[in-house]
């Protein structure tokens, strides 16, 4: 019997695709999703919205704006202050693969080829961002297969 007798709160489903549920809550929601097409559809919708906004391109700042910002103003103080900013930068993971529509695999599961009705773990894999450890992120896919 699913933990959620009816439907999962929509706010929870929204948090699910952001990978913001704790593991036990996520497990309960997954169980419910296995049984509930309506909640799966909601996850797809939120996932699509997440993708629509996330796919908005990075813009290039206008040239004049950049050159204005670079007009010299007291460079010595700026130099001193910025010297500490980028200390930990090398620890950052490359996120380029996210730009290519990379979806995180949950628990190391391999994704089988999508059928008309993908298993729920495959479904979740497509729509849910999981923070594995502290520094893993996934881009939620816009297109949903099997529909």
């Amino acid at each position: 019997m699913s933990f959620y007798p009816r439907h999962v709160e929509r706010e929870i489903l929204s948090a699910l695709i952001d990978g913001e549920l704790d593991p036990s809550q996520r497990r309960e929601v997954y169980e419910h999703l296995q049984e509930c097409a309506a909640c799966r559809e909601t996850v797809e919708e939120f996932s699509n919205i997440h993708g629509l906004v996330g796919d908005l391109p990075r813009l290039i700042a206008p040239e004049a704006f950049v050159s204005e910002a670079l007009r010299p103003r007291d460079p010595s103080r700026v130099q001193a202050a910025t010297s500490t900013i980028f200390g930990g930068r090398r620890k950052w993971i490359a996120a380029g693969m996210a730009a290519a529509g990379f979806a995180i695999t949950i628990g190391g599961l391999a994704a089988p080829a999508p059928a008309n009705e993908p298993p729920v773990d495959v479904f979740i894999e497509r729509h849910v961002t999981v923070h594995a450890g502290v520094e893993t992120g996934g881009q939620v896919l816009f297109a949903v297969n099997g529909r």
Partner: protein
Amino acid sequence: MFGRVLMGHSLALLDDAPGGGESDPAGPDWADVVARYADVVYTMAYRLTGDDEDARDLAQDVLIRLHRGLARYREGNFEGWLYRTTVNAFRDRLRKRKRLREDALGDEPPGHTTSEVVERAVQLKELHEMVQRALVKLPSEYREAVVLRDLEGRSYDEIAAILEVPAGTVRSRIHRGREALRQLLEPYVSEQGEIPRPEQST
């Protein structure tokens, strides 16, 4: 916190920091900061305001604030400070102007073409404009949270620190923002895979 979790495409350009371990012991200067963050700041300004002129003014304001603040800046969470500065500058503008133009984006029809590639690009551009228009229609508090989450790829905890509200409030704002976007972008949200043309919307 912000240095550890880097998600989505938005900050990929920040990865390769010049001066980090190279032959520049003083680290990057203001020119590096501008080179690195001008596009980030301008993009976020545009996504929040939906208008080039407003975005330039806002981004300019943000850079001035960052420049002033750098003298007092101590080692810590630079991106958090940058986002917070952007949000605060955005809110100051909202207060001054009561509302930013919602229909500022042009509706000019795409030029005629026979190329499918160009056609596709035009559709994509139209889609981006639709999403941008919808974003600007959101209440500003939802818009801030959705942009930081979906575009900038920030976690709820990070957004909570930037907006100085509890993480539960962030979750709620993001959810409400998505519900509003779902209504505004209904044909795009329910359509699977294919990008519908705007005139197909019901």
